[in-house]
């Protein structure tokens, strides 16, 4: 069956956000709608690595959230075949009152890591994060970079069938970003489908065979990643 080869099928997706705004302090205000995605349609094959490009506010994050089932489309259908993980920001749900180590263990079970795999999972995250003895300190005391390292290490250790990445490589210092790129490449080689929304165009070209460009909620390009990068650069310059 053809459908089995697909990892993600997106059919004519529209999405509207609803918002309440008040013009003046004593006005009653009104509810308004904002069309964030318009008629998005594409198919992503199992094992494909796709770069999702577009300016800020183009609808990239909204599309990823929609695929992850976090937000509701107002029209159309999305079918996903496999477990979907959305890496957005650097926080898979860490708790401020627990230590980094406790967080990794507690969250790992919540993300379906079995007891028998827990040790290996923990080592993998801690080894990647390289935050030393801070792993035993309360998470709320961590810097943004430390949080990013643990968060990224955690999610890329999960091995989902579909991984959606939203700008996460922007966190941390240069060294971390290099390391994260390496881990991401390793992850992509070892696993399923990846859609990565990034401003790192070199990374997009290097690891993705295909590129999508979104502009004002509309999919304006679907082709090879080099073409997508060129169009994105041209759109950004205009």
């Amino acid at each position, binding site marked *: 069956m053809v459908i089995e080869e697909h990892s993600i099928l997106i059919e004519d997706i529209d*999405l*509207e*956000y*609803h918002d309440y705004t008040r013009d003046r302090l004593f006005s009653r205000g009104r*509810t308004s709608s904002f069309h964030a995605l318009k008629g998005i349609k594409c198919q992503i094959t199992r094992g494909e690595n796709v770069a999702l490009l577009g300016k800020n506010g183009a609808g990239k994050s909204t599309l990823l959230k*929609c*695929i*992850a*089932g*976090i*937000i*509701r*489309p*107002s*029209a*159309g*259908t*999305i*079918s*996903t*075949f*496999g*477990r*979907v*993980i*959305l*890496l*957005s*920001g650097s*926080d*898979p*749900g860490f*708790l401020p*009152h*627990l230590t980094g180590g406790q967080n990794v263990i*507690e*969250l790992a*079970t*919540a*993300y*379906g890591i079995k007891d028998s795999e827990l040790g290996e999972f923990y080592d993998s995250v801690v080894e990647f994060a390289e935050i030393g003895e801070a792993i035993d300190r309360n998470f709320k005391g961590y810097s943004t970079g430390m949080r990013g390292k643990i968060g990224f290490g955690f*999610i890329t250790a*999960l091995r*989902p*069938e579909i991984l959606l990445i939203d700008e996460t490589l922007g966190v941390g210092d240069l060294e971390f970003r290099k390391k994260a790129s390496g881990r991401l490449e390793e992850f992509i080689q070892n696993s399923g489908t990846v859609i990565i929304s990034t401003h790192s165009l070199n990374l997009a070209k290097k690891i993705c065979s295909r590129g999508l460009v979104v502009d004002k909620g509309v999919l304006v390009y679907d082709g090879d990643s080099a073409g997508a990068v060129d169009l994105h650069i041209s759109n950004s310059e205009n």
Partner: protein
Amino acid sequence: MPNIIITPERLRQVSEYTQTEREDDSSRVSFLLKNKFRRIAGDRRLGVVWILLDPIIIASVYLFVFSVLRASANGATVFIGIALIRILQDSTKSGVNAISDFSGGIKAERIRTRVLIFSSIYFRVLDSFFQSIGVVVILYLAYGVEPVGLLVILLSSVTLGIVCEGVGLNLALIARKIPDVKSIVDYILFLMFFGSPALYSLSSTSGVHRTLNLYNPFTYFAEVCRYFSGLESSVNEFSAGIYLPLMGLSLLLTYRGYAKIDELRWKVSTW
């Protein structure tokens, strides 16, 4: 491997719900449940013990005020009423504000709605139990209430907690669209604290106040607990024509509230 179809109406898993997924969901329920208690505990040294202490402290303060005013309040009556009304307030607010917690704290993956429902119900059971257990110990040690009375208080507390959260869930969508509803609910709960038979028994009320309380489900929980605790109670005067439909309606709203979580969660995701 879950196969999911996402439409504007709902998110539906079309593949089989496997044993592994069932086990994962069970771990998540446990994780969410612990998180809810962790949030209450925060950095406080006594942690979740505050759940147990809260109704005892509030009831003690009111008993002190009554003694200053030379009002003849029965301590056991006040302890039972305060424990139950605090459960009513917390559970109703939790239901009305449920939308703020629909990710369950797991941010990288959508968790199944059944995980949210089970963790909410388990939390409500435990939270209501803890809120009443301290009072139950005091009623036993200081007021000599019989075990049957104590058991009825614990059962009533848990039932009241679930019912109030379920009823509150019915208001969650409208509270999301019109946040003023949350303030209105807060005022109603504040009024109920003093207007319901929490600090006094139903027999102390008269006229319109009494009539209104006969249509207040809280009255039945509080008075039944007092009755089985050997305290002054109006249980024998209750009319089945009022309390049976009232309880039936409450249970119906409770079921509707929990059953609608999936739809509610989906609807408000773009709000």
